[in-house]
């Protein structure tokens, strides 16, 4: 048989499917517990979610320092003892403060959980933020900031968010003075008000056997919460950012070989009827390898190693951003081409062929992004943070397939304009 290599084999599109539903229980202390149990390897991530983050403190470094220093000393154990205990069992913590939420996670092989859970709980009840550890973290933080500030991409990102969000905490940048100003009392205060004995929810992800469930109930489930009302974040700080004027900023760096570009704007909320269609439009523009920007700037002109457009969804704002690193003397050409591609989406309907590709690509990449229980739980984060329905993703593929070229053009004309542009380098 002679193979017809010029002809693509037949294929079938991804069909609509229901998204994984975590099992939900309530622990003795009232914490909602979401169980994501589907992993052959006998390991587990236990993640506690606190509805508090960087926007809830006056200084951008306070939340990050408080959360990341939870493991730097408790009433009975110093930082080194804690590190040794964790490493001894090959386990690790992931301590991360986001804008509106913070997470405190333990990753471990199941058989070592009994040795680790009591310590994990201790971080939440008895952390003391020793002065010496604060000094070390401060020093490290200042030095890392120095390194980051040398990177065009870091500076460009910072300017871009500042320009989009103005004085709202989403636009606040981390400055050396923030780090210098932190005192132990600030951390203790943030801890006592928002973490210690404060309510949290729990994600348990991995190979969640009966034994693990019992252990969690007996430890985390028995932690008591006090005055939950007093500890809720202040609504005032959660106000939506005020719209900011569009701007074009160029900060030259003489020695730079490349310039870092950011072009974008704030967009509609995740619950807005245009949101999902805008995401499809964004994918066509710069959300995958076959996108207009990637094909034009990289594959046709070789102007960049990569150009991407993405949609970021925060708790009380969303924005789109196009980003690329390009040769310094090509920066204007690159911007012109980006605007040309944007205009084309407004002026001409997407062809049936391109639409078929992007629909199938999005459905397929959604499907393949769900190929481990950890990535499924990661996707579920959006449902949790935005308080969406559990069925949010159930019609994902179907919704993609309903989009039309006319609708995309309409959305393009409504939103693809008035961009803020930041270039560093």
């Amino acid at each position, binding site marked *: 048989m002679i193979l017809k290599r010029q002809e693509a084999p037949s294929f079938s599109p991804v069909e609509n499917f229901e998204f994984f539903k975590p099992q939900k229980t309530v622990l003795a202390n009232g914490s909602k517990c979401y169980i994501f149990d589907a992993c052959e390897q006998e390991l587990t991530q236990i993640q506690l979610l606190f509805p508090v983050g960087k926007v809830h403190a006056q200084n951008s470094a306070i939340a990050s320092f408080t959360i990341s220093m939870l493991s730097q000393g408790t009433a009975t154990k110093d930082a080194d003892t804690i590190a040794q205990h964790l490493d001894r069992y090959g386990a690790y913590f992931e301590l991360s403060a986001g804008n509106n939420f913070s997470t405190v996670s333990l990753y471990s*092989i199941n058989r070592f959980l009994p040795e680790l859970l009591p310590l994990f709980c201790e971080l939440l009840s008895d952390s003391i933020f020793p002065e010496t550890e604060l000094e070390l973290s401060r020093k490290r933080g200042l030095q890392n900031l120095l390194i980051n500030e*040398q990177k065009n991409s870091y500076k460009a990102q910072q300017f871009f968010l500042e320009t989009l969000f103005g004085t709202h905490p989403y636009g606040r940048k981390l400055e050396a003075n923030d780090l210098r100003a932190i005192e132990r009392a600030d951390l203790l205060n943030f801890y006592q008000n928002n973490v210690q004995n404060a309510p949290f929810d729990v994600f348990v992800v991995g190979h969640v056997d009966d034994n693990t469930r019992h252990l969690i109930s007996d430890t985390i489930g028995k932690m008591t919460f006090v005055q939950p009302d007093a500890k809720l974040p202040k609504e005032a700080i959660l106000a939506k950012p005020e719209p900011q004027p569009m701007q074009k900023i160029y900060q030259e760096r003489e020695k730079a070989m490349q310039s870092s570009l950011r072009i974008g704007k704030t967009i509609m909320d995740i619950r807005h009827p245009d949101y999902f269609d805008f995401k499809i439009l964004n994918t066509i523009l710069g959300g995958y390898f076959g996108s207009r920007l990637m094909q034009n700037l990289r594959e046709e002109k070789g102007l960049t190693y990569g150009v991407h457009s993405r949609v970021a969804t925060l708790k009380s704002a969303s924005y789109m951003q196009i980003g690329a690193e390009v040769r310094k003397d090509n920066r204007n050409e690159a911007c012109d081409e980006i605007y040309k591609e944007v205009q084309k989406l407004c002026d001409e309907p997407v062809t049936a062929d391109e639409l078929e*590709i992007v629909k*199938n690509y999005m459905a*397929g990449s959604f499907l393949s992004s769900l*190929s481990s229980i950890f990535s499924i739980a990661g996707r579920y984060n959006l449902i949790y943070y935005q308080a969406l329905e559990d069925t949010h993703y159930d019609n994902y593929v179907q919704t993609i397939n309903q989009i039309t070229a006319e609708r995309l053009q309409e959305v393009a004309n409504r939103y693809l304009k008035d961009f803020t542009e930041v270039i560093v380098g």
Partner: protein
Amino acid sequence: MIAYSKFTLDNGLRVVVHEDDSVEVVVLNLMYDVGSRDEQEDKTGFAHLFEHLMFGGSKNIPIFDKPLERVGGNNNAFTSPDVTNYYTVVPYQNIETAFWLESDRMLSLSFDPRVLEVQRSVVIEEFKQMYLNQPYGDIWLKLRPLAYEKHPYKWATIGKEISHIEQATMEDVKSFFFKHYRPNNAVLVVAGKVKQTQVRALAEKWFGEIPAGKPYVRNLPKENTTMPKPRFLRVEADVPLDAIYKAYLMPSQLDPDFTATDLLSDVLGNGESSRLHQKLVKEQELFNNISAYITGSFDEGLLMIAGKLNEDVSVEQGNKAIEELIFELQTKGISKEELEKVQNQAEATDLFSQVQVLNRAIGLAYATVLGDTEIVNQNIQRIRSVKLSQMQRLARQVLKADNCATLFYCRKTQ
């Protein structure tokens, strides 16, 4: 345990199948047994440039990505000093599209001169973005030629210099392709929601007719097992903190001492409880951060110690502290608890790395290229069988002062 079966086609293509019906996708992972170590010294960066060209169209298919995206697939690739790896993930029902695309570019590339021109400039921008326009971005460009004298590991995968990429010709491209990108020089792993019988039929159909190439016999200049005397290089650059990089030559991947050396690097510098962090960051407050790791190369690799110094500490002072710490390790040895700790850490890392089906596929491909697929399942056993006495011997052998290339990467003096 990763379950698998395997077979070899008549043209020499080795195929490994890993069935996992808990996912809705199939991974096609094609690993070519060629990396930057197989390049000529005056034509470096070629294996990586080639990785880019592989997406620029093949004999019967003008463009790689589009037909793949049309069926819901995605793909990527990476190049290392040892191998070049391509992977494609598709919804399971569209597995044949992946076979069609991947086999056509093994059959032959399109060798379109325009593709070469564009990818040449993309790679040059990549070179700048990742290596030149980043603080500390060029350390491997400096360190490799310092640590290696003969072995091709002495140049970085991106290339020794941009000019090699600028000068690559279509003739170079063709000869590299027909020398290295042949079925008998590759391993195909198919993993996910798929059956072995289906893979066999598809592999025969799409890859079976591709002719084998002339066997490539790798005959690389061999590095001495250890360096005869210590090497130093001091460079200045526009960076905010001074940094120290120390590279020790270590055993190759299949050497019985490989895992023990890996664990030795963990004792030194994996995590906050490690010796380097405890002594030099916490106790003596000399370093902002410091860690140790291995490059994991197929041939003689490097055990690395890398750290950034606190502002008021000189590189000489930092270096001396590292050497004292190593001396203490060599003379006082390692405790049983310390060994157990790094064994547990290594086991957890191994287990976590197997969660994703793509990682399992890549692991199977590596093991097969190294010569034995079963290696992938022997990791835990190898970790557990490391002896204290073995680590102590290696601490003296590998961490010997003579066997070290040290790079001082300093702030520019005003």
